[in-house]
């Protein structure tokens, strides 16, 4: 059972366009993290959102945590080829350790 549904799973757009990736769940999480993964490497943390309704910006990337702490979105403005990669959302739970529940991932391709 996939507790976090991430969409779309694949997205190919032109440089300069805007895009949004969604991460939805019926479960409440302590926080939500977004990771980016390059081919042949492990995921690297981009941001953590903790408070319901929280918005964080990282240059052209805007991350939002839903008011009920069940969903999140990643919006990229004026996408660039350097944004190409696999983006993963992960819900955080504390059950003996910090357990991450990952979405399926969004493979993003930005074409020049």
């Amino acid at each position: 059972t996939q507790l976090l549904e991430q969409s779309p799973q694949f997205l190919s757009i032109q440089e300069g366009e805007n895009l949004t990736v969604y991460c939805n769940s019926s479960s409440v999480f302590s926080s939500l993290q977004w990771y980016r993964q390059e081919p042949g490497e492990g995921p690297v943390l981009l941001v953590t959102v903790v408070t319901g309704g929280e918005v964080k910006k990282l240059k052209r990337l805007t991350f939002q945590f839903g008011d009920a702490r069940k969903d999140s979105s990643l919006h990229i403005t004026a996408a660039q080829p350097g944004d190409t990669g696999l983006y993963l959302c992960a819900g955080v739970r504390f059950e003996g350790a910090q357990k991450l529940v990952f979405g399926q991932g969004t493979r993003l391709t930005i074409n020049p």
Partner: protein
Amino acid sequence: DAGITQSPRHKVTETGTPVTLRCHQTENHRYMYWYRQDPGHGLRLIHYSYGVKDTDKGEVSDGYSVSRSKTEDFLLTLESATSSQTSVYFCAISEGLSSYNEQFFGPGTRLTVL
């Protein structure tokens, strides 16, 4: 970069053989995790450790065992590998239990079971 290494980086084995993957950290972090990554599933937690000799199961633990005899090493063992265990395996470490704690991931091990 967090000091996490995984070995081997690639392995091809046959069904029924035992396989051990090693994760080594130089950060002295308390928590260590093993995940597998498969298309359409993201990463799924196999086992985790919250201290030396303290381990517990994750969501996909069947067919896997782990051991942690030293802070820096976390071993994942497939007692009798099956084709369904063909995957990319990632080790991760984290320092504590804050909501802001980041998990640092190793480079991964690509395992193929024929």
